[in-house]
Structures are given as C-alpha cells and as structure tokens.
C-alpha cells in the first residue's frame, strides 16, 4: 500500500516539479482568483439562505453536501467503466501481486484524479461555510465529501464483480442512489431527521463494505474499450479528389474528420437531434421562436466545438509536423476554421430553412445567421489557437480554453472596462505564442 501511495504521490509531485516557474505562478494566480470569486459568491448565497430560509448551519452543510454528492454519484459509473480502464498506471499496477487492501487503494487512488473538479469546488465551498457557519458544520461537510465518493466507488465495484455485464450493475447502482436521495429528502424536508439518517447510512455502509472485503480479490472485470476499423460513406474519398486550392491542409483536416466513423456518427446523431428540437420547439415557443432557435443553434455549435478537445474525434497534432514542416500559422488556422465551419454552415442552413418554413422574415434570418456565424468564427479562432498552443494534447487545450473562457466571463462581468481589455490582451498574447510554436 505504501508503494501505491508513493507512486501516486510522486506522479503529482513530479508533474508539479516539471512545470516552469512562470506556469506555476500562473496556475497559483488563477487558483487564487477562482477561489476568491467562488468564496465571495458562495458566502453571499449561504448567508442569504441562512437568513431567508432560516436554515441551521448543519442543515445548510447537509444540503450543500448532498447536492454535490449527486454530481459525484452520477459520474462514478462513467469513471469506473470508461475512464479507469484507459489509465496506463492503473493497468500497470493491477496486474502486480497486490494484496486485497492494496487493490482497493489502487481503485480509489486511480479514481481520485477524475474527482478533482468537485474536490476543487469543495475548497471554496468549505471556506465559505467556515465564514458563514461553524466548525462542526464545516467538518461535517468535509467528512461527507471525503467518505461518500469512496462509498459510491465501492458500491459500483461491488455490483460489477457480483453481476455480469455492465447494464445491470449501473441500473442497480442508480436505484440505490435514488433510494438514498429519496429517503434523504424525506428526512430533510419532512421528518427533520437527516443527521441520524446520514449517520446511520454511513455506519451501515462502512459495516457492509467491511463485511464484503473477502469478495474483493481482484478488480479485473473492467470493460475494455476496443477500437475497431469500420468503413464509412466517405472512405472512398481520396486526398487527390480535393481541388488544388484545398490541398494540403484543408484536405487533411476534412479527410481526418470524415474518415473517423465516430466523428461522423456523432455529427449524424446531433444533426437529427437538432432538427427534431427545432421542429418540436415551435409548438411550445411560438412567440419567442427566433430566440429559441438561436439558443438551440448556439448550444449545438458549443457542443460541436467541445469535441475539438476529445481525442476520440480529433487527432492530436504531430510534433514533427508542427515543428519541422514549413507551415504558415494563418494558413493552418484558416484550414481548420474552414473544415470545422462546414458543419456549422450546415446547421445554419437547416435553421434558416426551418425559420423560412415558419414564416420568419428573410432579412431577420439573414441578420441572425450572419451574427451567429461571426460569433462562431471568433470562438473557433480562440479554440484553434489554444489547440495549436497545446498541439499534442487536445484535452489540455480543452482545460486551457475553458479556463480562458471562464476567466474572461468573470473579468468582463465584474470589471466592465478592464475585463474586455484583459481578454483582448490574452487573445493577442495567445495568438503570438501559438504562432511561435509553428514558426520558431
């Protein structure tokens, strides 16, 4: 167990040690800004709840704890079945002759990194709770946040090794979760006995998991994700079929996307869903249909963009290609914008046709389409430069992009003059450093 703890501890330590000083300072500054922002908002919110809803400090703590635990609870099966099997460290260690307790520690430690986001939220919330409530309420919240995610993980693990397949364990897991929350709601809102209830659940769960310890010999029944070669309608499309003006970079971008069956399947399903939503929404939002359709379009554009950070749908850029090929920065950016904008243009054409069908004026549709297209291009430009900055790691680019967006929104919303200026400065700075990745 000590080896495992050391292995996982050292990974984080080495990662931190390998970061440059500038990056460490940037991370700390961002962390302080985010924490301060969330602490301020949460303190205000908790204060108002304590006064207006006449909650007790412990009651507030229990309420917040269980709201956050819903998030934990819902994501644990996904982490267990999808993310854990992909972790190299986990695979390397689980085949070692580890003791039963070490295997469980491995399971928990390997999952922790996926729960880091709620853990990061936990810090400002516990600070805000310590400002507005008392140490007992904060301790209650922190203990719950540390113990219950482990319970969730052990529950799905126990169900997995007891039952075959993964549909049954997931279904039973959610039934257990629903029963827990239904009873919690009953004890919280009606019977006012949530503290004994939670205490009892914790005791029973601990006892149950302890009793079952003998059956947890080996966490080996993970479902592996297997990549299969599949053909698709575009498999006959060749590089040389593209006109000279679209070669080499646009052709590359399009071929890489169109030959990826998962990308195509996703686009097909999301297009169908988009049309369905736009058509069915007219009945409910007849008066504000233009707003409704714009909101739906923007959401779908956002979803379309989010796949830029998922390695299932985009391939990381190749280091040799970016650093040793005579590429031009804006040619690469334009090629990427062009290839990704095609899908957005398809969405906008569909939206326009549906709006025309519902009798919206052509001029209005034109303004709307131009506005959305402009906005979408700007956003994609940001995504493209962030992806070049982190060219070999789309996921890291995704974190950076979302940090950038959240940071910009917070700054613009709170500082009307300085906020947009800082955002502009950040974009110019990012453009310069991303360009340097290619032309250096």
């Amino acid at each position: 167990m000590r080896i495992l703890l050391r292995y996982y501890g050292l990974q984080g330590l080495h990662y931190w040690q390998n970061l440059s000083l500038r990056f460490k300072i940037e991370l700390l500054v961002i962390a302080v800004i985010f924490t301060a922002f969330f602490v301020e908002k949460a303190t205000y919110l908790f204060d108002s709840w304590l006064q207006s809803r006449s909650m007790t400090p412990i009651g507030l703590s229990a309420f917040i704890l269980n709201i956050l635990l819903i998030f934990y609870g819902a994501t644990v099966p996904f982490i267990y079945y999808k993310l854990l099997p992909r972790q190299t460290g986990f695979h390397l260690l689980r085949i070692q002759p580890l003791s039963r307790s070490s295997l469980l520690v491995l399971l928990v430690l390997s999952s922790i990194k996926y729960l880091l986001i709620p853990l990061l939220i936990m810090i400002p919330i516990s600070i805000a709770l310590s400002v507005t409530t008392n140490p007992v309420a904060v301790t209650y919240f922190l203990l719950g946040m540390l113990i219950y995610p482990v319970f969730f993980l052990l529950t799905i693990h126990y169900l997995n090794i007891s039952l075959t397949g993964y549909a049954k364990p997931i279904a039973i897991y959610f039934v257990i979760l629903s029963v827990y929350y239904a009873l919690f709601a009953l004890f919280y809102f009606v019977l006012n006995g949530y503290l004994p209830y939670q205490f009892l659940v914790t005791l029973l769960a601990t006892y149950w998991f302890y009793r079952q310890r003998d059956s947890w010999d080996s966490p080996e029944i993970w479902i592996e994700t297997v990549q299969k070669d599949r053909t698709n309608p575009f498999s006959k499309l060749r590089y040389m079929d593209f006109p000279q003006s679209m070669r080499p970079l646009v052709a590359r971008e399009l071929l890489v996307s169109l030959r990826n069956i998962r990308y195509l399947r996703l686009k097909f399903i999301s297009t169908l869903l988009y049309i369905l939503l736009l058509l069915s929404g007219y009945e409910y939002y007849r008066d504000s249909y233009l707003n409704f359709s714009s909101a739906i379009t923007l959401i779908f554009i956002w979803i379309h963009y989010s796949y830029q950070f998922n390695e299932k749908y985009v391939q990381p850029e190749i280091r040799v290609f970016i650093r040793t090929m005579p590429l031009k920065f804006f040619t690469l950016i334009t090629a990427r914008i062009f290839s990704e904008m095609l899908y957005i243009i398809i969405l906008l054409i569909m939206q326009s046709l549906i709006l025309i069908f519902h009798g919206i004026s052509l001029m209005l549709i034109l303004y709307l389409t131009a506005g959305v297209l402009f906005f979408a291009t700007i956003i994609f430009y940001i995504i493209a430069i962030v992806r070049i900055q982190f060219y070999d790691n789309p996921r890291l680019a995704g974190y950076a992009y979302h940090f950038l967006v959240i940071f910009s929104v917070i700054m613009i919303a709170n500082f009307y003059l300085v906020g947009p200026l800082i955002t502009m400065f950040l974009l110019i700075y990012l453009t310069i450093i991303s360009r340097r990745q290619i032309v250096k």
Partner: protein
Amino acid sequence: MIRVENISVRYGEKIAVEDLSFTFENGYIYGIIGPNGAGKSSLINAMVGILGNYSGKVLFDQDDHRKRSRDIKLNLGYAPETTELFEYLTAREYLQMIREIKRLPADETEIESLLEQLNLEESADQIIVSYSHGMRKKTALAASLLGPPRYIILDEALNGLDPVAMYNVRHLLRSFAQQGSTILLSSHILELVENWCDHILIMKDGKLLANYSQKEIEALREETHTDFSTHFIRLVGDTDQSTER
C-alpha cells in the same frame, strides 16, 4: 553544411547537451552513436527546431535556424524515432501532402519509387491507423526523404526496418549524399553506423567524446587489432571510470 555552435540543452537541472560544436559537411553521411541518455536526440531535436530552449546556434548553410526557420524547413527532411502520423490518411496521401507543403516540383514517380523501395506499395492505399509499427516507420522515413532534401536528419528512424528496406535506404542515402545532401543519422546499432557512415561521432553525457572518419576507424582497427565495437565500448566505459574517479 550544418554547423552547430556551442549548443547546450538543459532539462531543469539536468544537462542533456553541453557546449557542443561541430560542422556537418555536404556530401557526407554522419552517424551519431552513444549510450542511452547521451544527448543524441536532444542535440537532434535542437537542430531540427523541436526544442526551442537551447543555447548556442544552429546554422544551415549560414542561415540561423532561429531566424530563417521556414526556408530551412523547406529543405529539411527529418524522421524521428516515434511513429506518430495522421491516422486517417493513407501513406500515399501523407507523402503527397508533405510534398505539397514543401512545395516540391510535381514528380509522379518519386512517391511511387519510395513506396516501392520501402516495400510499402501494397499497403500505400490503406489508412495509417491499420499500419504496424514497422510500416509507420517506413512511412515517416519516406516522408523525410522526399525531395530529396538538402539536409536529412534521421533520429533512430532506421531501427526496426526489414532487411530489404534497409538495403534500399542505404543506397538511397548514399546517392543523396553524392548529390550533395548533408545526412545525419543517430542509432543504437553500432554496425549500422559503422558500415553506413563516412564519419562517426560518439556522444556521452551530452559531450562529443570522439569523431572518427572511416579512414581513422580503419587505422584504429589495424593499430589496436580489435574491431570498432570493442573500441567504442572501451571508450564509453573509460569515461564512466574517469567520471567515477
């Protein structure tokens, strides 16, 4: 000609290459050899521009890599040890794309000839995602030889190739050197470097320990009555002992 002047590469506290200077002349094949961690790949990464944080200068025919990188990249063929390629392109498409990015004059036969010499013809129209490690290596190698470039740098790119491909690549590299290209290859395989290269550079701990021409190697063999590998091991081992002392 490629000239490196006082190149130093550091990864935090660790010095990967220390104040190294050397000139790689046109028309010759140079081989770099050394134990793991000797600094071969770091030196090459600095030369081709993958590493940005190095001190010193890399000159390609008097052009500083930091100042005229695009012109240099147009004339540079580089194949790394890793086999990352665009998964959903075919080898033929990949090579065609590289040709177009480098703006090489239209030549239908070059790609076909390279594919044939590397035994890739049959799989050239399959997407790369289905390729074996060796096929990927061959594709990356073929891409680095398109042109042919004025500077060819191969970082462990020949390891794992089949004998027929090795034989053909050797003749290709020799003919490119005769046409005036500067060729630099690094490898762990001593026999490969010894038999293919006009000059052999031995690196250890980020330093250039020795530089031998083929004539000097021949003289060394006659003088010591041992083969080059014995000399290499003795040289690298001696440095180990002197470092320990």
